[in-house]
């Protein structure tokens, strides 16, 4: 994630407004929660589980990387069209690139589906553990971004 430009340029690029919070989840947390649900499926029958590890903005993310790496990591907001072209240039089909842009715009619009803190306690309920918050995640993986 962001390996190439953070390591090389000290910059993160994204079209999302850096002041808008959005929910994030670490892949390990998805794995742990999935496993807990799969071995106890009756408990979650006919339910939707929305998991959240943390609620952050891209400014938070840039700051967390800066602290973990000991150098300034900047966030650069790029226009949506440029982001879309970049994705398509990387081989992503247009429908999918547009879909991703739509999600970014929902974050900018503070859509509750993507930026609510209502589910923050659910991860611990399911797994009995604390989720991986942004700082923990960045610290854990910071070696890869040097």
């Amino acid at each position, binding site marked *: 994630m962001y390996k190439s430009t953070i390591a090389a340029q000290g910059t993160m690029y994204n079209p999302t407004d850096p002041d808008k919070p959005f929910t994030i989840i670490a892949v390990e947390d998805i794995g742990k929660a999935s*496993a807990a649900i799969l*071995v106890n499926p*009756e408990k979650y029958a006919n339910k939707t589980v929305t998991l959240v590890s943390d609620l952050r903005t891209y400014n938070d993310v840039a700051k967390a990387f800066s602290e973990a790496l000991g150098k300034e990591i900047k966030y650069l907001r790029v226009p949506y069209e440029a982001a879309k072209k970049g994705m398509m240039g990387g*081989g992503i089909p247009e429908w999918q690139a547009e879909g991703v842009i739509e999600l970014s715009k929902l974050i900018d619009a503070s859509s509750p589906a993507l930026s609510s803190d209502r589910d923050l306690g659910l991860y611990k309920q399911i797994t009995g553990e604390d989720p991986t918050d942004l700082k923990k995640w960045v610290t854990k993986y910071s070696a890869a971004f040097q």
Partner: protein
Amino acid sequence: MSKPVVFVIGASGNVGTATLTSLSAKYADKVEIRAGVRNPEKAEKLKGIPNVAVVQATMGDSNLVGVFAGVNTLYIVTPATGNRIELVTKTTESAKEAGVKHIAVVSLPIAGTTDTLFGRQYSEIEEKVSKLGVPYTFGPSSHVHREFIYVQEHHCGPRHHVQPH
């Protein structure tokens, strides 16, 4: 009495691998774990996880009813492809026919909304699965981590491992 069988299909991506790692680490004494991938020859990482049996399984294939025989709980890691609705729906139908008791499907928090493409796709998946008559769970869903990687990796810089939606 034998242990219930948990089957993860679409196992080779990040979500599948993370789930199998956790199942193996914490629950290998409670459940029998199977990982379904399109290409078992390429599934080196999964084969390295203890107590996981890697089997060939392609979403939407007509032979899945046989593949799912004896499975108690199925986890469908929804693929990033454009025909995901069809693949997931066919897979759930095979699961129902095979007698799978519970189906979990990776979804997104915007399922249930229709003002975005992904919202519409996942809304349709959820609607079909919920009408199947087999107990289901949607999630755990939270797309933004994957979007995070996705937009960045494809906006700038050299391509790394694709983690699509």
